């Protein structure tokens, strides 16, 4: 067996992807079902000179990765629902100060302590709106280990490209399930490095002045450019400002840099979508069951297709609207009370044909569940 073929948990696939992307600083706090990410990184990071620290809580973990990112490192933390709740204020700070970082939320049942060892996809809207104030975020997910690896690399690339936190919304099933992972060769997936300023010492560097392409070159702490970073509204020097023009300009910039690039950030897989009469829209571990339904029904002549979303935020609304036009029935398959369903209904031309197939009891939604709900919608009975 070649060295690069592994039989691992999804959490390990995430670790492998992060290391491939150049992760060299991780701060975290133990929580089920994400703990394996911290455990593996505590072992792997120092082997290549990287650093791992177990902080006193998730708030501190989120803060520590922001600090380390400012010294030029590629950084990540990992948690689950309760910890993700604690991280929200610092996550908002990273959005406001435009610090590249990656946050993994391996979702479990909530609210509160909920179901620590069971699957859920209940944090989709928390990823979108957990931090206070208007803001835009990038949140990605995946349904199998090969994709978890690739989307983790993608998360680091997008964090650097847009100078923003990127959230990886995995779940307990993909996190703990074991399957094959082929680690790509070096260079197989392109990596985006830190964009650093070319402004020389002694010349005024503006940390918050976007270039023409919208990107903001950074300067590492400890370097020749000294500047201020603050969670207050700030001008192009990073100095606090309550000037209405500065405030409005910064807020628009933070929203636009992500929302205006939604089509470029959209990642998805499609299965038999072209002629589908019934379109399933799903993501994460639920998409595995949805794919099973498609693969099972197609040989029987049923025109069922699957649009598997990997980018949840910014919601790929143009893509979803276009793919939902022809099918007679659109069914969102997810393990919550309809969090992506809401976004789909808002986006499509005729929301009355959009239905929800869900499970919220801590069990993985099965192909039979999906098939039965579809039969009820079609008036065929179970």
């Amino acid at each position, binding site marked *: 067996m070649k060295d690069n073929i592994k039989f691992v948990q999804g959490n390990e696939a995430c670790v492998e992807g992060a290391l491939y992307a150049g992760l060299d*600083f991780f*701060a975290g706090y133990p929580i089920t079902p994400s703990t394996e990410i911290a455990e593996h990184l505590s*072992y792997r*990071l*120092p*082997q*290549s*000179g990287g*650093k791992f*620290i177990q*902080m*006193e*809580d998730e*708030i*501190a*973990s989120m*803060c*520590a*990765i*922001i*600090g*380390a*990112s*400012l*010294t*030029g*490192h590629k*950084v990540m933390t990992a948690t689950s629902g309760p910890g993700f709740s604690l991280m929200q*204020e*610092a996550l908002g*700070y990273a959005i406001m100060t435009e610090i590249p970082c990656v946050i993994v939320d391996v979702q479990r049942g909530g609210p509160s302590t909920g179901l620590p060892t069971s699957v859920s996809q209940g944090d989709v809207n928390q990823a979108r709106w957990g931090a206070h104030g208007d803001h835009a975020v990038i949140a990605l997910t995946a349904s199998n280990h090969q994709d978890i690896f690739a989307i983790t690399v993608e998360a680091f690339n997008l964090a650097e490209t847009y100078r923003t936190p990127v959230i990886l919304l995995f779940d307990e099933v993909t996190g703990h399930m074991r399957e094959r992972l082929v680690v790509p060769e070096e260079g197989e997936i392109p990596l985006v490095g830190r964009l650093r300023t070319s402004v020389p010492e002694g010349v005024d560097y503006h940390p918050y002045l976007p270039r023409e392409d919208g990107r903001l070159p950074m300067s*590492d*702490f*400890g*370097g*020749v450019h*000294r*500047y*201020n*970073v*603050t*969670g*207050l509204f700030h001008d192009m*020097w990073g*100095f*606090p400002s309550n000037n209405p023009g500065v405030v409005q300009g910064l807020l628009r910039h933070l929203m636009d840099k992500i929302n205006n690039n939604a089509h470029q950030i959209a990642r998805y897989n499609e299965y038999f979508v072209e002629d589908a009469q019934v379109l399933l829209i799903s993501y994460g571990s639920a998409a595995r069951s949805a794919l099973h339904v498609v693969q099972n029904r197609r040989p029987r002549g049923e025109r069922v297709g699957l649009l598997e979303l990997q980018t949840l935020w910014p919601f790929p609304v143009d893509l979803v609207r276009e793919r939902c036009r022809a099918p007679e029935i659109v069914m969102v398959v997810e393990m919550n009370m309809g969090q992506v369903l809401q976004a789909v209904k808002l986006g499509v031309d005729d929301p009355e044909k959009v239905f929800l197939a869900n499970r919220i009891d801590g069990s993985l939604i099965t192909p039979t569940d999906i098939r039965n709900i579809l039969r009820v919608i079609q008036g065929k009975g179970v």
Partner: protein
Amino acid sequence: MPVKDYIRERFFPHLWCPGCGHGIVMNALIRAIEALGLSKNEIVMVSGIGCSSRISGYLDFHTLHTIHGRALAFATGVKMGLPELNIIVPMGDGDALAIGGNHFIHAARRNIEMTAIIMNNRIYGMTGGQYSPLSGYGTLATTAPYMNIDHAFDVVQLSIAAGATFVARTTTYHVQQMTDCFKKAILHEGFSVVEVLSQCPTYFGRKNKMGSAADMMAFYRDHTTPIGSKKKKENPDLIERGIFVQKDLPEYCRAYDTVIERAKGKGQKG
């Protein structure tokens, strides 16, 4: 280098009230850094939220003005990310020991090299005079209109118990001692804490009838004493000033280098 060369004039005028002790702390800090001959590029100042935390913006270092109570957690990431940097963390008493209390004891326990300056004015100034964990039993505040029944922390005892390897206390009246404490704290290889009693005439002083800023500084002169002095034996109520702890224990980032060495050895074996 003149003091003004450490200041970002763009930021001024500062937001501190007339008579506030925090400007004295900033002055003493600049003089300490100047005396040590540190380059501005090798200093990172990390602060949280509150009157005291605004120091970071006023000074021409790499400055990180963060969220309430979490400055030490951010600073831990900066320090581990680039251990050769000097990290200074100015905090207020509420910032450091109420909302930030957990981060404070854990940073002390790790003995990660950075200097925590706790500017203790016994009140939340920026929000208008609410009681803090340092206000003390019997004081008055806007949220303790009858009387505060919360007991205060002893910052020095708390720091020692949490494992800080350098612990000092001084006041805005004793500026020479303050500068000296800062110098030693910054040079210390480990987690250093300097508590500075700093007057808030606007809120704590007014609520508790402490008089003017000058009266409050005179209070520091009359109610503090060097550690172990004869006066302290005669009057146990006096607050001791000076360096309480200065000891060598493995510093966190240097200890992590050992972890890396071990991991690399293991990695090579396969």
